[in-house]
C-alpha cells in the first residue's frame, strides 16, 4: 500500500486475489479446471491455492472440457458455487453443448425451478505468439447466447472484482480474462473488491468522440485517448465490461454527448460485439449521430504466429488514433 491508498499488482495477481477471497468468504465456492491444482494453473493464476485450500476446493480435472464443465453445472444445480476454469477460450468449443444447452437453458426448461449459479472463467485473445488455434477472441460467440451473462475483465479492478459479484448471481456467468494482460501491472485501490456487473463504465470523459471498447483493447484505447488529447481531441472511453446484456444507457448517453462513436475490439470484425453495439446506436440514437458509426476490429484471418503479423492482426494504438482523426476530420 502507498500514500494514495492504492496497491500495485499484476493482472494475474488480481485474479488470484479474487479467487482467494471468494474461497475464503463462502465454503460452497470451489475452483475446478485443468492443471489448476498441482501445476498452479496453466498461467500460474492459482499457484499456491491448492496448498492453502486443499484438493477438495482446488480440483484438477481430466482433459475433457465437456465433462468437467458439465460437472460444474451439476454441482451448481445441487447448491454449490463452482468456479470452472476453462484454460483458454480456444478449448471452450468442446464444452459449448454444456454451456449452451444446459447452463443457459435449464432455468427456462425447468419452468423457473432450477437456477444454475456456475461461473466459468476463460483466458482469451492474442498476444503471446500462440498462433491460430490458441489466440481466439470469441467473446461474440458467447455474447450471442440468451440465458448467459457475459463479462469481460479489461482492467485490473474488474479482474479483482468481477468474480466476487458473479458468484452472487443465481444464473450462469461467463468471465473472459486476457492472456495478454497477465503480466501487466497497474494500481488499484487497496480496498478493491466486488464490482458492479450490470453497467458499462466511462473510463475517461470526453466530448469529441465516444470510443467504446472492451477486453484487451481497453488499455490500448485509453493510451490512444491520452495521445489524442495532446492533439486537441477530447475522446471519451467506455469499457463495455458486460457484453450480455449490454448496458445501453451508458452507451447512448455518451453518444448523445459526443455525437460520434468508434467501436474497438480484437474479435474479428464481422458479426462481433461492435456490430451489435453499432446496430443499437443506429436504432436508438440515429438522430444524434454526426458521423457514421465506425468499427475497428480484428483482421479476418487466422491469427498469425510471427510477432509483427500477430500485432498487425488486431487494432493497435496507431490504428485507433488514425481512425479517430479520420472521423473528426474537417476540411
Amino acid at each position, binding site marked *: 500500500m502507498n500514500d494514495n491508498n492504492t496497491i500495485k499488482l499484476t493482472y494475474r495477481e488480481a485474479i488470484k486475489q479474487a479467487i482467494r477471497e471468494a474461497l475464503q468468504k463462502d465454503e460452497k465456492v470451489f475452483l475446478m479446471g485443468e492443471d489448476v491444482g498441482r501445476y498452479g494453473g496453466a498461467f500460474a493464476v492459482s499457484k499456491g491455492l491448492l496448498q492453502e485450500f486443499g484438493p477438495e476446493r482446488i480440483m484438477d480435472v481430466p482433459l475433457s472440457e465437456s465433462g468437467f464443465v458439465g460437472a460444474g453445472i451439476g454441482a451448481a444445480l445441487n447448491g454449490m458455487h463452482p468456479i470452472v476454469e476453462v484454460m483458454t477460450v480456444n478449448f471452450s468449443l468442446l464444452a459449448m453443448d454444456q454451456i449452451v444447452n444446459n447452463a443457459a437453458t435449464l432455468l427456462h426448461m425447468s419452468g423457473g425451478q432450477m437456477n444454475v449459479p456456475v461461473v466459468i472463467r476463460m483466458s482469451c485473445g492474442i498476444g503471446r505468439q500462440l498462433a491460430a488455434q490458441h489466440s481466439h477472441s470469441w467473446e461474440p460467440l458467447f455474447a450471442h447466447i440468451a440465458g448467459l451473462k457475459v463479462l469481460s475483465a479489461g482492467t485490473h479492478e474488474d479482474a479483482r472484482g468481477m468474480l466476487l459479484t458473479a458468484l452472487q448471481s443465481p444464473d450462469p456467468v461467463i468471465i473472459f480474462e486476457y492472456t495478454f494482460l497477465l503480466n501487466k501491472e497497474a494500481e488499484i485501490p487497496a480496498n478493491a473488491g466486488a464490482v458492479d456487473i450490470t453497467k458499462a463504465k466511462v473510463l475517461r470523459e470526453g466530448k469529441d468522440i465516444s470510443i467504446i471498447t472492451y477486453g484487451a483493447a481497453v488499455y490500448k484505447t485509453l493510451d490512444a485517448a491520452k495521445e489524442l488529447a495532446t492533439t486537441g481531441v477530447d475522446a471519451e472511453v467506455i469499457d463495455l465490461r458486460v457484453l450480455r446484456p449490454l448496458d445501453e444507457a451508458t452507451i447512448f448517453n455518451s453518444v448523445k454527448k459526443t*455525437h460520434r462513436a468508434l467501436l474497438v475490439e480484437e474479435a474479428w470484425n464481422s458479426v462481433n460485439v461492435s456490430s451489435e453495439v453499432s446496430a443499437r446506436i443506429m436504432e436508438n440514437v440515429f438522430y444524434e449521430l454526426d*458521423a457514421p458509426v465506425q468499427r475497428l476490429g480484428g483482421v479476418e484471418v487466422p491469427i498469425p504466429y510471427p510477432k509483427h503479423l500477430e500485432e498487425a492482426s488486431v487494432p493497435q494504438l496507431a490504428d485507433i488514433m488514425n481512425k479517430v482523426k479520420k472521423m473528426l476530420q474537417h476540411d
Partner: protein
Amino acid sequence: MIEFKMPSLGADMEAGTLREWLIKPGDSVKRGDIIAVVDTQKGLIDIEVFDEGTISELLIKENEKVPVGMVMALIASDKEAVVKKEEKIPEQHTEEKKPVEKIMAAEVPHGIKASPLAKRIASEKGIDLMAVKGTGEGGAITKEDVENAIAEKMAPKEEKKMAVTENIRMAVAAAMSKSNREIPHYYLETKADMSKALAWLIEANKQRTVKQRLLPVVLLLKAVAKALTEVPDLNGYWENGLQRKTDINIGFVVSLRTGGVMIPAIHNADKKSIDELMASLNDVISRARAMKLRSSELSESTFTVTSLGEDNVETVYGLIYPPQVAIAGFGSITEQPWAETGMLDVRPVMNITLSADHRATDGATGSRFLKAVKNNLLNPGEL
C-alpha cells in the same frame, strides 16, 4: 374541413419556410386575407387564403420548412361546426411535433450528404441544407457546418439582403434554364406607329394630377390584355397540353435595383380601366422592389409583358416564363422614317415582339395577337 396548402410561387419553387402566422385558431378569414408570411428564394412573401371560414388548426410551426402542396392549416368552412376547438388544439399541436422526421425527409433532396444530427438541427432551425457546404469526411455536412449556417443566418440584415438577391438570381436562373431547355420558342416581330397613342396620352394626362399621370406602359398593358381576349390561346399554361385561363393576369417584369427580376401579376387586366391599371402597376412595382408581394401576385400570372423601353433598347426577345405559353416584348419608342400610303414621314415607332410556345400555338396565332395589339394602340381611345 378546407386544407390550406403551401402554394407554389413559381415553377421553380419546391418548398418555402413559414416565417409567421398572421392568424390563430378561431380567427375567421375570408378570400384574399393574408394569413401567413413565407420565406422563399424570392424573399418574404405574404400568403393569401382563397377560402372563407374559421381557422381550426395550424399544422405547421413557424420557421419550419414546408414542401409545396403540404397542408399547413385546416379551415372550417362556416357551415361546419367548429367543435371542441379550444381543448383540442393545444393537444394536437404537441402530437404534431413527432412527424418532424417526415417533413425532413421531404426537405432533404437525395444526394445531400449530411449527418443525421446535422439534418435534424437543420430541420429544427429551418436551414436549407442545399446551401450548406459540408466539411466533414467526404464532404458530409456535419453539426458544425449547420451551426455555422445558423450563425450566418443570425448575422446582420445587410448580409441577409445579399443572400436574398443571390436567391433571386438562382430562381431566375432556374426558371429561364427550364424555359430554354423545354420550350420550343417561336419569335414574331412587328412595328407600331405610336403617334396616336402618345397624342392620346398627352391629352389624357392634362386632366390628371401628377400622381395620377399615365405612362405609355399602361397603354401597352391594356392593349395586350384586350388582344388576349381576342386570342385566348396565348393566355394560359402548358401543362400536359394547353390549359387556357379565363382570367387575364398579366405578369409585368420588374427589374430589381440589386439585380434579378420579379414578375408580379396584375389581375384581370382586361377588366380594369386605364386608371385602375395604372394604380395597380404603381402599387406592384414599388412592392416588388421592396420584396413585399402577395402570393397570388407571384403565382397567378397567365401571360408576361417585358418592356425595356426606358433603356433605349429597340427590340427585346423574351424567354417564356414557364408554364406560361407566351411573352410580349416592347422596345423603346424612337423616331423612325415611316412609309405610309406612298408617303415618307417621321413617326414615333415601337418594336413589338412575341415569343410563344410552339407546342401550344403556331405562328398564325401569334400573328393575330400582334395585329390585335397594334390595332389597339392605333385606337387608344377605345382601350
